């Protein structure tokens, strides 16, 4: 009987392995393991066998049945998997069609993106971001910044005046973010580390001037802030914006509210400060100078401190013999222009989507 069991098992295994559909497997299961099939029949008849034979035949028949059941199950699973794969392979899409529904991409204006980038750099250097009024008094815009009463910048050709009561207005559109220097010092005692981003206005309009533009003022006042500290701070800024290899240099210049005053140049990132390109051509960006002028700065002129009254808010106040510091004003448009190669200032305010989409 044992031989018969082995024979049945071998025969069934052959058939199962050759079956190629779940229907065929079901038919084989019924044929070999169903109620009327020979193997289960033999199992049922085991009780009638001699005790000696009973154990051996029972074990063999049971093992054969379990083996066949496992094999059928495995084969069913295998075939189901293959059938699923086949049906999935048939269910093809054109993967090159565009995604749907379309997700539109919005972007910050390059001036906002640049301003935020610069704010973040100075935040990292310990500066707080402050803002102030754009319609400003003559006092904060000029007087408190050491502009003489006859300074040409006050002229109506250089400054927008706001219509006021008859007899003249003392309100202007601020011509720089610098009026916030004195406002910030009035509001806070030293040490003071602030940057002031904002919109400023001057009556000029051509390819290199727009009547409105954006600046970021920096102001640091403490007991011992030197011109060398200004250089270090702006070196960090230059490297963050234009790359780790950049260098800065300070050139003497003149502004009414800083002394000493400097213009700050960053080594040209296009030609690596060499002034010419690899092919020997003159660098178009720095015009062969190797340096790009990026901002004006200096040590705060002592006369500016004298315009800061000491009050409860800013006590002990700003005594120029006890405190000193630096200030700078940089143009956001200029930085973005340099960084992205934008050729014309007017593009910023035209808001053509083909421009806005680029940044």
């Amino acid at each position, binding site marked *: 009987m044992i031989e018969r069991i082995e024979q049945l098992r071998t025969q069934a295994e052959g058939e199962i392995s050759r079956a190629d559909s779940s229907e065929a497997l079901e038919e084989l299961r019924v044929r070999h393991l169903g109620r009327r099939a020979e193997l289960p029949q033999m199992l049922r008849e085991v009780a009638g066998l001699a005790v000696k034979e009973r154990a051996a035949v029972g074990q063999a028949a049971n093992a054969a049945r379990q083996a066949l059941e496992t094999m059928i199950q495995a084969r069913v699973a295998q075939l189901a998997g293959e059938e699923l794969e086949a049906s999935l392979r048939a269910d093809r899409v054109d993967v090159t069609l565009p995604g749907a529904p379309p997700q539109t991409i919005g972007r910050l204006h390059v001036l906002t993106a640049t301003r935020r980038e610069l704010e973040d750099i100075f935040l990292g250097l310990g500066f707080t971001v402050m803002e102030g009024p754009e319609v400003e008094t003559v006092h904060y815009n000029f007087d408190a910044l050491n502009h003489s009463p006859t300074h040409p910048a006050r002229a109506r050709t250089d400054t927008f005046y706001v219509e006021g009561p008859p007899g003249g207005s003392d309100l202007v559109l601020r011509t720089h973010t610098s009026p916030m220097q004195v406002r910030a010092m009035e509001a806070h005692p030293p040490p003071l580390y602030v940057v002031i981003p904002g919109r400023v206005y001057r009556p000029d309009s051509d390819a290199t001037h727009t009547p409105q533009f954006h600046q970021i003022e920096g102001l640091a006042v403490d007991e011992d802030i030197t011109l060398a500290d200004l250089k*270090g701070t702006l070196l960090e800024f230059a490297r963050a914006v234009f790359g780790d290899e950049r260098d800065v240099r300070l050139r003497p210049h003149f502004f009414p509210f800083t002394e000493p005053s400097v213009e700050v140049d960053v080594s040209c990132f296009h030609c690596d400060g060499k002034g010419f390109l690899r092919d020997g051509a003159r660098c178009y960006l720095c015009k062969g100078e190797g340096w790009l002028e990026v901002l004006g700065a200096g040590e705060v002129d002592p006369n500016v401190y004298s315009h800061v009254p000491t009050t409860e808010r800013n006590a002990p106040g700003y005594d120029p013999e006890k405190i000193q510091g630096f200030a700078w004003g940089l143009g956001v448009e200029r930085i973005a222009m340099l960084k992205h190669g934008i050729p014309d200032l007017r593009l910023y305010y035209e808001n053509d989507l083909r421009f806005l989409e680029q940044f």
Partner: protein
Amino acid sequence: MRVPLPWLREYCDPDLDVGGIEERLTMTGTKVEAIHRHGVASTEHFVVGRVLEAGPHPDADRLKVCMVDVGEDDPATIVCGAPNVAGGQTVAVARPGAVMPDGTKLKHAKLRGVVSEGMILAENELEIGSGGEGIMVLDGLLPDSGPRRAGAVPRPGTSLADVLPIAMDVVELEITPNRPDCLGVYGVARELHAATGADLAQAPWSEDVGSQGPVAEASVTVECPDLCPRFTARVFENVTIGPSPTWLKARLSAAGMRTINNVVDITNYAMLLTGQPLHAFDLDRVAGARLTVRRAKEGEQVQTLDGQARTLDGEMVVIDDAEGPTSIAGLMGGARSEVEPDTTRVLLEVATWSGPNIHRSSWALGLRSEASGRFEKGLQPEQCMHAQAIATRLMIELCGADVAPGTIDVGWEAPPAQAIRLREGRVRAILGVAVSVQRQAEILRALDFATEPVKDGLEVSVPALRRDDVTREIDLIEEVARIDGLESLPATLPARRGAAGRLTHAQRVRRAAEDAMVGRGLHEIVGWSFTEPALLDRLRLPAEDAMRRVVALENPLSEGQSIMRPTLLGSLLDAARHNVSRNGPDIAIFESGTVYRASHEGPLADEHHALAVLLSGSLAPRSWRVRPGQADFFAAKALLDALLDRFHLDWSVEPTSWPFLHPGRSAAVLSGGETLGFLGELHPLVAGAWDLERTAAFAIDLGKVAALASPLLAFGAFGPFPALRQDLAVTLPVSVAAGEVLERVRATAGETLDDVSVFDVYTGAQVGEGRRSLALALSFRALDRTLTDEDIAPVRERIVAALGEIGGELRG
């Protein structure tokens, strides 16, 4: 300012090439903006020639065929069109191969059949002088190729560059407004001296051949000494007007001045050297031989040299002679007393004018000149005599003039030099790097300051020409730093002492709001703060509307930029129109920026930071799969949801009319008892004014949003149990707002209601006239268990009853 380098080197000649000089000047505060090559780029092929013979051209009456000795074995044949060419002249010749200043390369050229082997040159062809006198004849003009050079008539074949200034480097300098002393060549030479250590020649005005004292031939009265601190004049007689020598013409041309005649050229030369403008009158044309300096009368008309009639105001200054105005002080002379070819007596005016006054007058009249540009920077009265000294010497040398004794000198008394203490420690404290006292003294002395060592540093005396600029210790520190210090400055960071950078809550809210819109696919625009008053009409704002309380400019660039925008809507509409016409009809943009109103209370304007969105056309590009929605009220509202819910604001809308919005599709946005802004579709007449189709927008005050948004968000507990979701369809009169329905549901449902929203709206015959069906999605949740339908049944009944009170009926 353009400074010819050979002229500069006459006073200070460091052992540096032009690039080295550029670098030193730039790094010490006199920025070289450009280096120009004046004249020829290469001196090759330019030689001295002698005309052996000038014969007629066979085929052209105006041309002459010249045989010219150019130092070679055979003379060259050169065709020349100048009427003054003649045999025996020593001339300047360009041979084939020469490159002219305009870049033309000379070749053998056939002129009316005769081959010309070069060109005999006129002054203007070499950029020496203005030309007009035919070819240059070198015999008569030599030996003055430079004011100090002498030499014999040169031999043919001599390189032309050896005898004529045909090639000059010119540096173009940016002179900062605090340094009017550098508006002359000698002032720049002093800077170069301090910057390089090279010797500085004695000031060219240190020897004056003129004399002081009264002048018999003319008189001057100054009626407004506040605007004219000093007026000097000298009289010259037996003046011969003629062309200037070549060296003078060459220098003036290189400096960018036109050459006119010897007297005018001398005034310009003296100005370029000293920085001080001069004016030459023909004394015989000065009526009464007296001048009066006075304020102009309001509306007074003066005819200026250029033939124009100028209308003056009471703050401008004129110079009268006995017959009335002859010139506008500091700006332009009058035609009546101009130097003419027949002039023989010259009155040379050198005066100091109030800088700000000249600045104002020159802008008001639109009259700018080399002179006004210098006066407006504020010159020192001492400079008058510098210019007189230079001009006097040249008038005698070049015009054969006799200087009359004396100098008219009105209204000046030199104040004593100011003394300032410069503390050694202070220099280091400001710069962050030490400069030795010896070096400080050396720098200051090179810049014409006098120094005296004292215990803690230097006692410094300020030179006259720097008295306006240098008045304090800090100014001296700048002088030291710019010459020595800045370049060796270390890069350090401030000590900071606990200062930490951060954004304010309002700044973070602003960034988050902008990012929310960008994340929803909108592009940010940056518009003009300026707008035009007509905008207010196009927005249909009535006369009393608060938005008409605008900030207006006194001096706008144009009517279109004459007021400050009271809303962001204008710039969004402008950007939309621009893009519709260029890039198609679909617009989804926003702006985050300041808007302005005139203030009744504070000293300044009312400014607030607003964010506004504008949508027009399709909300998304066309797709092969889904039809995109169109911009309308609800599309804009969905964006407003996205924005305000970002800050967990409790807000609502209320139907409200705005003049520029569709009256049936507009609302006020409310939160915390305040109006944040508006939401709606634009009135078709407004959209049409910008050539737009259906357009929706909202604008809100981000300052108010920031004030309402909590900077601190507290955690709310939630449990592990799923929500029970049920739908409820109810018909209601159309007059009942969905917001009211939702409000009632929330009010009656109690705390198990997690969320309720409208997911369908239906009107039609099935629900009856004047009614509509709202389908509500309800979700209930408890912290401690899974809710069942039985739990919710009573809540549902309460909701149905509450909706029944406002006419609601459950739909089957």
